[in-house]
């Protein structure tokens, strides 16, 4: 009995994921299990997954970042503006696209670093400091795009970064029989997850992140550079939000200022919590967040396949988040 509850605490999220996967497979075997559907599941969830990984680091260090969704949108906006400017100025499509990618990641990193500055040097509570970004960056994004959409003027190369990838041999999609590809965005997601897991478990930064989140005072008294550690987590969260912006904007080849990355911060927090990272900080795991993201993705997928009204989907999602978290909670306090 004891060991079962301990097992569920640790791997409950995996059990929940497998259960949902089986339910989906049993109810809609023809559609859900199709390679194309599974591929889409990965493609669609890569951007939010990348954002959630940054969020995991921030939360383990005892913070929270509400601004990631807006950073994501603003980075994409500025990146596409740069792309269009460069192409209009006569740069080659490849150069312009690559520079735009760098701009997105750079803008993300800068805005994340600014969060870090506010929290560490300005001593603003993380919730408030990042609330500033949530509100302000979205507004900047809307102002830049005048509430509408920014389309990329790169016809081929920039979107090819989003749609290209590694083809899976023997699998095709559509009537034309195009090969099924795992997109670069998915690989970026995997790479960032591995990088973050590596940082957390094998470097001094990771050890400090956990110590700061668990007991900041003890960490500081133990000669840990606590401020710097927190600053890095926010900066990384920003950089990852910029990377996520690359993954999505290349796939869509445009940015819709009002909806792009909307509520990503909440979805990311949900994925982190479902994945077993404590909101109190001090402990957490990257792989849990990855499974959490996929779990949320599968829920949406099932609901769509089952034809549940889009208006009701949030209720089901909320209930499943609650169930997943309750399942992981130990019986002891």
């Amino acid at each position, binding site marked *: 009995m004891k060991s079962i509850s301990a097992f569920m605490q640790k791997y409950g999220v995996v059990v929940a994921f497998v259960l949902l996967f089986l339910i989906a497979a049993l109810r809609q075997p023809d559609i859900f299990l199709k390679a194309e559907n599974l591929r889409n599941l990965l493609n669609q969830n890569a951007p939010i997954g990348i954002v959630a990984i940054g969020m995991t680091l921030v939360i383990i260090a005892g913070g929270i970042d509400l601004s990631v969704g807006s950073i994501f949108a603003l980075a994409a906006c500025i990146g596409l503006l740069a792309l269009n400017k460069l192409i209009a100025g006569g740069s080659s499509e490849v150069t312009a696209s690559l520079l735009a990618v760098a701009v997105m990641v750079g803008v993300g990193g800068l805005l994340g670093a600014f969060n870090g500055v506010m929290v560490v040097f300005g001593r603003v509570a993380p919730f408030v400091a990042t609330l500033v970004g949530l509100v302000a960056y979205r507004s900047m994004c809307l102002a830049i795009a005048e509430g509408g959409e920014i389309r990329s003027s790169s016809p081929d190369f920039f979107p090819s970064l989003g749609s290209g990838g590694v083809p899976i041999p023997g699998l095709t999609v559509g009537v034309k029989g195009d090969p099924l590809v795992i997109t670069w965005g998915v690989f970026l997601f995997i790479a960032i997850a591995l990088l973050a897991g590596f940082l957390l478990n094998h*470097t*001094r930064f990771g050890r400090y992140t956990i110590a700061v989140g*668990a*007991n900041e005072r*003890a960490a500081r008294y133990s000669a*840990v550079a606590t401020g710097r550690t927190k600053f890095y987590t926010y900066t990384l969260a920003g950089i990852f939000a910029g990377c996520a912006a690359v993954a999505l904007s290349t796939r869509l080849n445009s940015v819709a200022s009002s909806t792009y990355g909307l509520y990503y911060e909440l979805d990311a927090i949900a994925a982190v919590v479902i994945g077993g990272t404590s909101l109190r900080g*001090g402990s957490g795991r990257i792989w849990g967040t990855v499974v959490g993201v996929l779990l949320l993705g599968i829920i949406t997928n099932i609901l769509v396949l089952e034809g549940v009204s889009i208006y009701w989907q949030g209720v089901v999602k909320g209930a499943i988040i609650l169930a997943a978290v309750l399942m992981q909670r130990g019986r002891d306090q």
Partner: protein
Amino acid sequence: MPRLEVRDVSMQFPAVLALDAVSLSFESGEVHGIIGENGAGKSTLMKILAGLQTPTAGEILGPDGQTLHLRSVGDALRAGIAMIHQELNLVDTLTVAENIFLGREPTSFGRLDRAQMRDRASQFLGQVGAGFSPNAMVGELSIAGKQLVEIAKALSYEASVLIMDEPTAVLSERETASLFQLIRELKGKGVTVLYISHRLAEVEEICDRVTVLRDGKVVGAVRQGEANQTEMAGMMVGRPMEDMFPEKAVVPDATPALSVQGIGDGRFVKGIDLEVRPGEIVGLAGLLGSGRTELAEMIVGARSRASGTVLRDGKPVACGSPKQAANAGIAYVSEDRKESGLVLSMSVVENTTLANIDSYCRPLVNRQKERAAAEEWKQKLDIRAHDMSAPILYLSGGNQQKVAVAKWLELNPKVLILDEPTRGVDVGAKRELYLLINRLAQDGLACLVISSELPELLGLCHRILVMRHGKIAGEVQGDSMTEEAVMVMAAGVEAA
């Protein structure tokens, strides 16, 4: 008939038998001391009586010999048993009256009846001799004041059995004296007080009977005056105590490893000079609030200072943060293990290497090397831990403290500042810590020891600096090192 009787109570946890068929009885109007080393079963027994844990065997009998089923704190309170925890459970942002009636606020027609709440609270505050108003915010009270609120709260439940867990751990001498006065008054009214403490001098003074627990069993019961402190300590550890303190070594003449000049913030610490030579153990005594901890925090840069320089081997060093102090060879083992000393959720190994993780990164954390180092400290300092990868939370206080020291020794410091190194640590582990500090000093470490326990400073240190109101009030060494001399300086009164 006894007021409360414990009969053959056992508590089996997954790994340990915390209580092994313990039988005890408590009379009305008795102060009953419960002593024992950490892990002896004191806390478990008290938690059972307070309704926080249910024993796996045995029964608890009330005043009429009836069986009491104490399955919750509510059950215990209804049976007239209240516990004052070491970590007080009050809401700082509510008033005293609101805290006393938390969860059972008197109402009239659904509205909070504040007048009634205040009046009744005043009555209970009067009984405990509290000098503050029921409208005072609890957060603004001293720790002693908060403790009075807890006792008043217990009385408001008409509790006639009060369990006090280490009540004096955070009190000054004067506050302790008034607490004892209150305990005697309560005793006169027929209240039974179960008094748990590590401080044997206090137990000897206040308790009518003392029960000694060891390894979950009752190993001794004495009446007041039947056993002195050394004998009680002997029963606790299961062997006669040799002299608690190792012999003091001679301090070699050398440049002070640490000198502090004119350090202060104008508030808690007012321009202090001090020196500690290599191999020397200097004590820092003073009442609570005299600025001892603040001084230590200032030296290592954990607290900002307005003036003063810190010199290492005669050369000024930057000490703006604990990290800079560590780089300069000054380590501070802080007062509160849980709050600032250790990261309780991290493993023993990770805590051991936390301050020195750089040495295990190249650039990745080398877990094998890290573990090997922790194992080495485990050997050297005799740290008793079954599983070095388990959270340090599960170690006893004494072993946690050894890890906290090991964490700093990892950095090979030249100056070690220890703040209350034996707080909440049992007698056996205390002696081990004394031996350790003595050995470190003999190896040339300069040690500054802050402690509220005078016998500890007198037994361990070469000389003692006494602080009062943020200043050094005096110094004692050699033959002038007596408890009286220190107390006179600390309290600022001349001996009559």
